[in-house]
């Protein structure tokens, strides 16, 4: 059975297990939706009090918010195994068993658990997307839709890459993994606003260091058919999500190095 088919098997098993507790799963999903939705309340309150900022109205800002939350929620769905890697695999020695199977460790971790409740974030993001489309209003022609899908793909790749890095950290220390939240949740926090409102050094960090701007800012400009207030050339805007894939590739290199280290030091 090839890797994709095996992944599908893992997903089905995970979903079936959750389907056995429909009430709990629903409750979790609603809860997660509420917990993540409070952020848009904050965004709204600030726009309501201060007015438009950086050339953006609330509706336009909401599009940034929606896309980055969509990207992260999908990545979140795919990477539970990596998220709990330190506590549930390295610390318990269960990773030994993963290595004793003739399959890539990453594949096994990706299929570890697919939590339906993470759709909660996706749901509120989609709601905000609809809201933004009405408020602006956004012209969803073929180009805009394609750009959005492409941006989300790049964004998912970026966030998956970050979470793989978090798991890789666990090979060195099982205790300081919290710091990666700076990149995941912190990244969502930062990118839920249009990035041109931030000071220059931060924007550069989010373009070249952690390429959030490439997946969340530039593609949105293309969708809204606005030139970049900061002057990036128009042809760059749709290509930017490539950076997300590049980041993912680099993360997997680190992951492989981490496994090699695990094999040297045991658990």
């Amino acid at each position, binding site marked *: 059975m090839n890797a994709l088919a095996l992944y599908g098997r893992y997903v089905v098993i995970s979903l079936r297990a959750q389907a056995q507790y429909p009430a709990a799963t629903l409750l979790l999903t609603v*809860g997660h939706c509420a*917990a993540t939705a409070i952020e848009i309340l904050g965004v709204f309150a600030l726009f309501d009090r201060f007015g438009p900022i950086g050339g953006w109205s609330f509706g336009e800002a909401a599009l940034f918010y929606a896309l980055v939350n969509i990207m992260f929620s999908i990545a979140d769905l795919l990477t539970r195994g990596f998220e709990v890697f330190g506590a549930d695999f390295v610390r318990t020695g269960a990773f030994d068993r993963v290595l004793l199977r003739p399959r890539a460790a990453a594949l096994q971790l990706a299929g570890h658990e697919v939590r339906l409740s993470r759709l909660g974030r996706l749901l509120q993001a989609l709601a905000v997307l609809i809201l933004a489309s009405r408020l602006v209003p956004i012209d969803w022609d073929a180009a805009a839709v394609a750009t959005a899908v492409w941006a989300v793909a790049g964004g998912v790749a970026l966030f998956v890459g970050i979470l793989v890095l978090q798991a890789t950290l666990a090979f060195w220390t099982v205790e300081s993994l919290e710091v990666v939240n700076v990149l995941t949740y912190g990244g969502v926090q930062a990118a839920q606003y249009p990035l041109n409102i931030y000071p220059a050094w931060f924007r550069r960090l989010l373009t070249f260091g952690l390429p959030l701007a490439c997946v969340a800012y530039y593609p949105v400009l293309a969708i809204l058919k606005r030139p970049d207030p900061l002057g990036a050339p128009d042809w760059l805007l749709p290509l930017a999500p490539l950076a997300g894939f590049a980041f993912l590739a680099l993360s997997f290199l680190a992951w492989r190095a981490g496994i090699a280290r695990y094999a040297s030091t045991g658990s």
Partner: protein
Amino acid sequence: MQSVRPYLAAFRTRFQLMLQYRAAALAGFATQCWWGAIRIMVFAAFYGVHAAAAPISLADAITYIWLGQALLALLPWLADPEIGQAVRTGGVGYDRLRPLDAYGFWYARTLGWMLARAVPRAVLMLLAAGIVLPLVGLGAWAWRPPSGMAAALLFLPAFVLMTALAAAVLMLANIVVAASLNERGVNAVLTPLVIVFSGSLLPLDFFPDALRPFLHVQPFAGLVDIPFRIYFADLGGGAALQGLALQAGWTVVLVGLGRLAMERMMRRLEMQGG
């Protein structure tokens, strides 16, 4: 003193346990610095557009954010994982066998858990945001000291009450977890409620003006909004005393509710045979 020993012991063991995780402490600190920085940048951007629309000065807003990060561990937004664990492994029954006031014991344990996580981070945050930032010339973005003697003096009881209130909220949450065996469900409700209404997401005055009267008197305001505004004298004199009274009042109510709930749960466990 003898009667207090088990509670002190509970507090101390938790504290020691938390100290062991040094890498975790530093990582958590870095995370929170980042968090604070992002939120400050967002505020600064909005203030840059129309500062007059703001209910407090940017300097105060910045101090508010740093205070929030420093004392984040005192925010009762997650039920204590140890309690959830004890429930799942049937440990709850054992607590009944110990010759102690169950609520008091758990309350002390909760306090220990919160303060152990808060103190190291608060100290680090004070060093970084309160001392280092001004030293490197970024004083405009720093955590400022309390605005005057009165504010400083009033902040002390406000801090104590905010901690007591947080423990009371967490206790109630823990008891509901123990009773319902549903830690996730409780957290799903607790987290958004606390984060929004305590003033952790935004200082309460930033929400639409129409909501102000309600927001100022609800129980969670005493967790963050009231004590912080006392700190930079946004709440001064009589208003500050009113704020303290609100914190104290809600603490009493929640402790009372917590004890009642615990009574009922313990009795139910007895009837079920633990």
